């Protein structure tokens, strides 16, 4: 469980996040949604420690995170898996070395044990026989899956995914969504997904937090989001031609 309490963040005197209070629940896929510029990425960056909140606290299972030193943050960071927008795979490493990286850094497993774990994780994301390929040799969807495999290789307690469907076709995006949802339930981890893709929202949104102009505007799940009478959220949910047509029907 990740708890965000009274959190605010500004850049150059411009308030980007204003007094955010929310809880990302364990064993659930928690979505942060909102338009571009609503503060989703900043909220996630604060949660993973890439930005420091100006005010408020972030706790990981009742352990303070945002207020402690960088050195102490390392222990909590070792329990995190992060899937970045572009995958952020290491160019100079092949797929196997990328997935093995957290195991090399933080475990004392033997090379055989590490390889076994890597193969298990790659198989879990439906990738096989790609161990020796480099990131430049695989497709965008495969990169995302390798990044998921790397994120789960060290059995994280918290999984963060930032706009993981950007640049993917709808079918591949659905596969990635399903994978994240399955992994969350299978390993009982706290997953936080940052997205503006309504397909993802309706597919995996077990808990949804809607950000509007830097404020937490609405919270609910994938069923209640369709029945909301909140005008700003309605505007966001039914912003595409397709969703508007579906609503009419």
């Amino acid at each position, binding site marked *: 469980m990740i708890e965000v309490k009274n959190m605010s963040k500004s850049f150059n005197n411009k308030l980007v996040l204003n007094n955010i209070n929310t809880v990302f629940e364990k064993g659930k896929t928690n979505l942060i949604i909102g338009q571009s510029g609503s503060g989703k990425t900043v909220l996630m960056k604060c949660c993973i420690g*890439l930005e420091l909140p100006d005010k408020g606290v972030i706790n990981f299972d009742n352990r303070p995170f945002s207020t402690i030193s960088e050195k102490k943050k390392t222990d909590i960071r070792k329990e995190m898996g992060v899937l970045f927008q572009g995958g952020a795979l290491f*160019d100079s490493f092949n797929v196997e070395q990328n997935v093995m990286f957290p195991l090399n850094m933080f475990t004392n497993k033997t090379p055989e044990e590490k390889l076994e774990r890597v193969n298990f994780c790659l198989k879990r994301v439906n990738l096989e026989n790609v161990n020796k390929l480099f990131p430049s040799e695989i497709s965008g969807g495969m990169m995302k899956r390798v990044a998921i495999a790397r994120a789960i290789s060290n059995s994280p307690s918290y999984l963060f995914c930032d706009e993981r469907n950007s640049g993917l076709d709808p079918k591949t995006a659905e596969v990635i969504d399903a994978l994240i949802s399955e992994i969350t339930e299978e390993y009982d981890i706290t997953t936080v997904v940052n997205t503006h893709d309504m397909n993802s929202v309706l597919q995996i949104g077990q808990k949804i937090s809607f950000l509007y102009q830097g404020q937490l505007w609405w919270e609910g799940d994938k069923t209640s989001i369709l029945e909301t009478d909140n005008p700003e959220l309605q505007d966001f949910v039914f912003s595409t031609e397709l969703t508007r047509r579906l609503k009419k029907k």
Partner: protein
Amino acid sequence: MLKLLGEYLILMFETFKRPDKYSVFRRQLMIEFIGLGVDSIGIVAIISVFSGAIVAIQTAYNIDSPLIPLTMVGFTTRQMMILEFSPTIISLILAGKAGSRIASEIGTMRVTQQIDALRVMGVNPANYLILPKITASMLFNPLLIIFSIGLGISGGWFACVITNLVTSADYIEGIQGWFEPFTITYAIIKTLVFALIISSVSGFLGYTLEGGSVEVGKASTKAVVYSSIIIIFFDLILTQMLLV
């Protein structure tokens, strides 16, 4: 300027920390030995041989007085290679080759969020990325410079022999005469300082990069320009401190 210096010192403080895992550090170090050291052998060899040859021929042509023995050609070539050419000019060439490589590699990692990925994994990115490069440069560059001195002097001998400007015996006598062992120490000290400058300044410019791919190119160019200027500046200071 002061802000930049402060940011550089903070980054170096992060860089010179105990590696998270020594086995990973050793592996990275071996990669950098090859990338920054072994891969530079070719260019260093070619430039050193030709420069030694040019210095020898120019010295021979400029000795007009019969009072100056021809052994001075070998002596001058040796002194030029040890005191200035190998440590400074080769370091400037390495600033171009290795410096731009370091800045563009780390800069690309910055814009593609690979550095963020390292940080959120709990790895100290500065230590993981920059320390092996600094260590490899400081260990390998002195070897490159010794190699360059040897090749430069050999190039001078070869040029003298094929052009018949100086006999082989005179040249060899010249390179053996009035030898001060401290000049080698001086060359190595300069090389170590220059290696630190090239790797740390280029690493800093790549690591602190903000923006996209255009900025990677700019950082790469800046790495070469800044490293070269700082090398020349420190060359003056070290020469004044160590030789005068």
